[in-house]
């Protein structure tokens, strides 16, 4: 354990507030505000884990979780970024991908075998002979992967989601972002600012620097300026602050997504955030470009901000003796500051030839810190952690070794462009800043701050303010938003700030891309995937010349940290190497080929910008299903429910899924079925009939008052999409039903197919407003008559009849005589709120007959015996109305109606090769073929739609779709079932329907 400096004004931890957690079974002590990584570092942990491929030791490198070096298992959750996770009392922390421990990993020897594993080696090996591949594959799988997850793991914690509205979203809570937020909020706009760290402040937050030439009137340290801005932002009524919130996606039309990690007072562990803004400001800042040299990821090598923030934010000195190899003033600043905090700085090497801040040079000199201009680290030494570093001049001519326990290495800065590119900014390589910068910005999106290459504090703040004002202008220019005067005032304010910003320092010159003069066998361009410079060269030599392809071939940038580490270096290295190796390019005249080498092309960045838990994305998802008004009563009666489409429906009423009792009860007595899920509609208005003529195949002008008409709707291929009944309520006023599945799409179907006609009609979806009881069986009339005084005798209310009456002077009923199940049946449509009462009445009335429920499966069998079809069960994409034997519904005379499906039916009706729906019974009293069994000869000739052992008929019957040459009654069909092992079973085509062919029962 190292001593913590606990008096710094920049600290974000509370050293007095201890937090005890468990690391590998032992108690460790951190302090409140520590991340798991800083707490471990404080406790002396240097090797956090082992790398994916070579099992190399890995440690703290960036402190922002840009690579998998410090990913650990926390509380059973694998791959947690410990640098971004606050330590909590009782947390259980474990290292990953080690055999033994991270310190002593038995797999560590693999690092020596790298020569066996050049780029893409697995494509060239392990397939000869073929028999070794399955064995090799097993080993690969075991070796690959980082964390471990048990199949019965249950994710603890509460996850939530919000979709807040905002005018302006600001990504990044640094000085530029905060200025942007304030500027827009001051214009009366609703602003959301999102910051990934648990506090606002960005790269001002840990810096005590107070440039002597600072432009602030009252010169003050940067961290206090940050805190001043933060308190303004947090107290602004128009600004909503989401801290500890990572933005993970930005999309067209200004959709921004992210997630927030809950604090002590939040009711969630993490919550998903999705915002549709009118304008977006991106002020995401920069990360450091990793310096490329041998063993550049050895524990003890870390980036500038990592070492600096460890000290300033967490009070931890990263090492005792440090060598710096940097390419940016922030490196010089850190060296000076860390020196003052007590670190021994052996030397500072700077790859830049010029451009250093003179003030910092003086400060270095004052402290007698040796400064090596034009030098760079070329190799870190030490098997598990750094004990020495070789420094070299850029041309490699002079080298020197320095003993140290810390190498602070950074090649310079690179902007965090992901938020822009995801929203389709096009990037261009800018040779001044050496940044990829946005060439074209997404609509209504503004960038600000360091990512533009700005380094001067005031420039950064003004750029933020300007971005905020521009975002405000976007909002105010939106239709019907604000008046002209306000817009004009805003425009002139923007002009004046633009002028002001031109007086300030612009984008700074960035350090050039340099690589240490080494072969690169252990120079890692991607830590997560163990990809070296050497691998990249090999890949390019094989003809892969586009960074995106190289990424695929070497996996560089596809690990847990995605592009964080290789994002900048890979494209630059590829450009450099391809330009140097001419053999990759022919002498072709095509400019597109030539352009490949010289200009660096960024690799694609993809969401989520930060790895995001599936639990977090899932948020607080609720299952939304529909229930009928009789839901609870049917459950009380033992209903076995199934989710079917949007509904929950009772499919069975006992454990006997053959439904014998339910079926026999309907055939011999009386049963009741909940048919409430049927689609129900009213269509009225002057052109209502025209619409029906368009969508139904029958002549709907023949619908008679007091009668129901059964018909079907087809699609433009002539396939049946729906069937149901239509009732005429008045002139151009109809009530009709659809199948359950079609209910949701019916109105849009009607409107779609009449969209060019300008017809005047009105449709109301009444599906949920009516509960439906299907009362079926020979005793149905007796039951119904008991609850109504209406004459429901066969003469007063015959088959296909429609009646409206009121039960007990209260409940209005629309009643239909239908026969789907083949028995005397009434379909009673009543207002849903009364459904429970009516259901109870029917049950009460049916008590003397021992009335029973029946479910959807019983209905399925009953109607099958009657050869009534269910769409989707006896029909599919290849079957049209005629194939199903429903041609009688089609009225060919109403040509003017342009009935949907008619054209296709006419064109296909004489085609002999189509499927036909047939009825069949099994031979020799055999059991029913299973649904889905095939009808075959030497080819597949059709399939069984529905077949059952019929209790009613005492034989196995079913319906099948078969090629038409097999459709004749008497034809023997051969049935191939799954798992039949070639043993066919046989059936014979028989006339349909099987049950009550004359319809006496349903009509009586």
């Amino acid at each position, binding site marked *: 354990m190292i001593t913590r400096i606990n008096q710094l004004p920049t600290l974000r931890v509370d050293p007095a507030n201890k937090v005890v957690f468990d690391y590998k079974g032992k108690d460790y002590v951190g302090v409140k505000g520590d991340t798991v990584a800083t707490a471990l570092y404080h406790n002396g942990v240097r090797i956090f884990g082992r790398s994916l491929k070579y099992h190399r030791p890995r440690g703290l490198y960036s402190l922002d979780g840009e690579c998998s070096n410090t990913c650990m298992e926390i509380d059973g959750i694998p791959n947690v970024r410990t640098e971004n996770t606050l330590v909590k009392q009782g947390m259980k922390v474990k290292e990953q991908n080690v055999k033994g421990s991270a310190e002593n990993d038995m797999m560590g020897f693999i690092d020596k075998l790298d020569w066996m594993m050049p780029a893409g080696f697995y494509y060239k090996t392990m397939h000869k002979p073929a028999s070794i591949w399955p064995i090799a594959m097993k080993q690969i799988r075991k070796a690959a992967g980082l964390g471990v997850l048990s199949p019965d793991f249950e994710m603890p914690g509460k996850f939530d989601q919000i979709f807040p509205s905002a005018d302006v979203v600001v990504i990044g809570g640094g000085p530029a972002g905060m200025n942007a937020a304030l500027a827009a909020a001051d214009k009366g706009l609703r602003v959301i600012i999102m910051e990934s760290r648990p506090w606002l402040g960005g790269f001002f937050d840990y810096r005590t620097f107070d440039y002597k030439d600072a432009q602030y009137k009252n010169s003050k340290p940067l961290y206090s300026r940050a805190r001043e801005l933060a308190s303004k932002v947090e107290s602004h009524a128009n600004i909503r602050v989401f801290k500890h919130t990572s933005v993970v996606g930005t999309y067209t039309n200004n959709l921004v997504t992210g997630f927030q990690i809950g604090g002590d007072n939040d009711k969630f562990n993490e919550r998903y955030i999705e915002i549709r803004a009118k304008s977006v400001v991106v002020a995401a800042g920069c990360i450091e470009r990793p310096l490329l040299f041998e063993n550049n990821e050895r524990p003890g090598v870390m980036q500038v901000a990592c070492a600096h923030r460890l000290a300033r934010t967490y009070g931890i000195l990263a090492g005792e003796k440090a060598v710096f190899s940097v390419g940016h003033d922030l490196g010089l600043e850190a060296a000076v500051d860390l020196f003052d905090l007590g670190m021994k700085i052996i030397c500072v090497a700077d790859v830049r030839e010029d451009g250093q801040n003179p003030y910092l040079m003086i400060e270095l000199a004052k402290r007698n810190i040796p400064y090596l201009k034009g030098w760079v680290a070329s190799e870190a030494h030490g098997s598990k952690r750094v004990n020495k570093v070789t420094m070299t001049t850029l041309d490699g001519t002079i080298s020197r070794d320095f003993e140290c326990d810390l190498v602070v290495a950074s090649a310079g800065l690179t902007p965090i462009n992901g938020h822009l590119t995801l929203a389709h900014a096009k990037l261009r390589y800018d040779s001044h800043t050496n940044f990829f910068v946005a060439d074209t910005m997404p609509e209504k999106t503004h960038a600000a701050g360091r990512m533009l290459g700005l380094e001067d504090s005031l420039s950064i703040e003004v750029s933020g303010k300007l971005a905020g004002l521009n975002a405000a202008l976007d909002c105010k220019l939106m239709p019907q938003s604000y008046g002209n005067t306000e817009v004009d005032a805003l425009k002139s304010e923007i002009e004046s700030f633009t002028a002001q910003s031109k007086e300030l320092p612009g984008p700074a010159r960035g350090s050039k891309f340099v690589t240490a003069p080494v072969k690169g066998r252990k120079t890692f361009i991607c830590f997560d995937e163990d990809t070296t410079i050497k691998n990249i060269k090999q890949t390019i030599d094989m003809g892969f010349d586009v960074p995106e392809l190289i990424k695929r071939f070497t996996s560089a940038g596809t690990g847990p940290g995605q592009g964080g580490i290789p994002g900048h270096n890979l494209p630059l290295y590829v450009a450099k190497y391809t330009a140097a190796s001419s053999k990759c390019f022919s002498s072709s005249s095509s400019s597109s080929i030539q352009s490949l080498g010289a200009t660096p092309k960024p690799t694609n960045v993809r*969401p989520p910008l930060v790895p995001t838990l599936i639990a977090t994305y899932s*948020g607080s998802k609720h299952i939304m299903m529909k229930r009928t008004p009789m839901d609870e009563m049917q459950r009380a009666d033992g209903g076995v429910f199934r989710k079917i489409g949007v509904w929950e429906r009772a499919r069975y009423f006992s454990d006997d899924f053959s439904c014998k009792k339910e079926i026999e009860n309907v055939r011999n007595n009386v049963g009741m079925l909940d048919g409430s899920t049927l689609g129900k509609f009213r269509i009225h208005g002057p052109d209502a009939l025209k619409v029906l003529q368009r969508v139904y195949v029958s002549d709907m002008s023949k619908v008679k008052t007091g009668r129901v008409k059964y018909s079907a709707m087809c699609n433009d291929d002539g396939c049946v999409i729906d069937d149901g009944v239509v009732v005429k309520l008045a002139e151009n006023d109809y009530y009709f039903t659809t199948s359950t599945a079609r209910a949701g799409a019916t109105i849009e179907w009607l409107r779609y197919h009449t969209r060019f006609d300008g017809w005047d009609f009105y449709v109301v979806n009444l599906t949920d407003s009516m509960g439906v009881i299907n009362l079926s069986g020979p005793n149905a009339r007796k039951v119904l008559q008991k609850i109504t005084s209406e004459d429901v005798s066969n003469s007063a209310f015959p088959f296909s009849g429609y009646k409206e009456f009121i039960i007990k002077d209260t409940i209005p009923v629309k009643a239909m005589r239908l026969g789907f199940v083949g028995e005397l049946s009434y379909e009673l449509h009543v207002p849903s709120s009364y459904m429970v009462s009516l259901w109870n009445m029917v049950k009460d009335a049916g008590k003397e007959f021992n009335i029973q429920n029946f479910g959807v499966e019983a209905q399925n069998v009953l109607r099958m015996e009657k050869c009534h079809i269910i769409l989707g069960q006896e029909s599919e994409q290849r079957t049209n109305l005629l194939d199903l034997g429903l041609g009688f519904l089609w009225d060919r005379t109403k040509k003017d109606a342009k009935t949907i499906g008619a054209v296709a039916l006419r064109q296909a009706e004489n085609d002999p090769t189509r499927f036909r729906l047939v009825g069949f019974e099994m031979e020799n009293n055999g059991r029913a073929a299973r649904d889905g069994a095939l009808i075959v000869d030497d080819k597949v000739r059709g399939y069984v739609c529905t077949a059952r052992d019929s209790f009613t008929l005492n034989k196995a019957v079913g319906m099948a779709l078969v090629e038409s040459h097999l459709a004749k009654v008497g034809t023997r069909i051969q049935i191939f079932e799954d798992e039949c092992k070639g043993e066919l079973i046989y059936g014979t085509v028989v006339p349909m329907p099987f049950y009550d062919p004359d319809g006496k029962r349903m009509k009586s």
Partner: protein
Amino acid sequence: MFGKYKPLWGEKTQLKSSYDVVIIGGGLHSLATAYFLAKEHGITDVAIIEKNYIGFGGAGRNTAIVRANQRTQYNVPLYKEALDLWPVLTKELDYNLMFNNCGNLNLMHSEAAMKAARMTIATAQFHGVESHLLDAKEAKELVPALNISEDITFPIHGAMFHPPGGIVRHDAVVWGLAKGASKYGVQIHQQTEATAVNTKNGKIVSVETSRGTINTSKVLISAGGYSASLIYGMLGIKLPISVLTIQAMVTQPLKPLLNHVVSSGAYHCYANQTLKGEIATGAHMDQWPNYTTQTTAHYIKHQAEALSEFLPCLRGLRFMRIWSGLADMTPDMAPILDGNDQIKGFFMNCGWGYFGFKSCTVSGKYMAEFIAKGEAPDMIKPFNLRRYEQHKLMGETAELVTYTPNN
């Protein structure tokens, strides 16, 4: 063991002024067609014209899942042959395609789905392809992470288990075929855009490219998601295709957890573990035409919701990367393999939807035969374009066609 690092698919060459066959699109179907044209039919004077780089499109963006458990008898034998080809090609190309035949488990969430599965299984078995129906408990034995409880949106009733299916390393197939084709002399021209196809008297005469005109009498357009737009744009032939963006994603890598490909139609979701340890998952398509390879916030959330329900342990995992590609969907979910019909010498291979990876080698094989002989081989005859005007959709899906890509 590894030798020198030489360009895998030949040195870059000048574009010639004529070729026997020009193939537009540098994806898997094109590379396979070129490979088989050269290997089986001795036609080696072939140019592949690719606007970006080989494998830029669907070839590098697909699920990597292979299987032969389709719905109809036209498709199953085709995909069966494709499955059988992986080991053969690994050997022929001397390139490890990393076929992991871990088997596919397709979840069923209702009685109706179980029936549909039984038909598909019977069709597979009838054609000698292994496939079995499992109940929910058996499915969980294979995939212990499955949630077979009732309290999810789509409770699991059972599954169709198809042992011979699995995963193939998709990029390896691209590079392997490119390597194989170029060995026979096929020229692969990357960064070269085909801009027009010229015809005379109903015959193909030449192809215009960004690098000059190529005279040829035979052109194949097999440019994946871009085919339909190219075919209409260059030749005025409209196709029953809707190009949709399909998305997929991976989680952070993990030690072995899933040993099979798991998929669910109801959840619009598949998941399998790559050799690297990532859980690869995806399947969603926005149901309107797109040529964008952008991804959506909507979908990554949807996917998380779905996985949270049926593979709940994955809630503790993190999504790392989401990407998308194009799927050229036809109304009957079957491709269009046609040629020498509207224009002599013009061939098309498109409409594979999201089945383009599984089928690429076998489609290349038969399209090569078609191009070489001028007559469609029996195996692919049913996949002609005219089936739509004859009202004979193939039935690879049972879904009815309405006005939209998703019905």
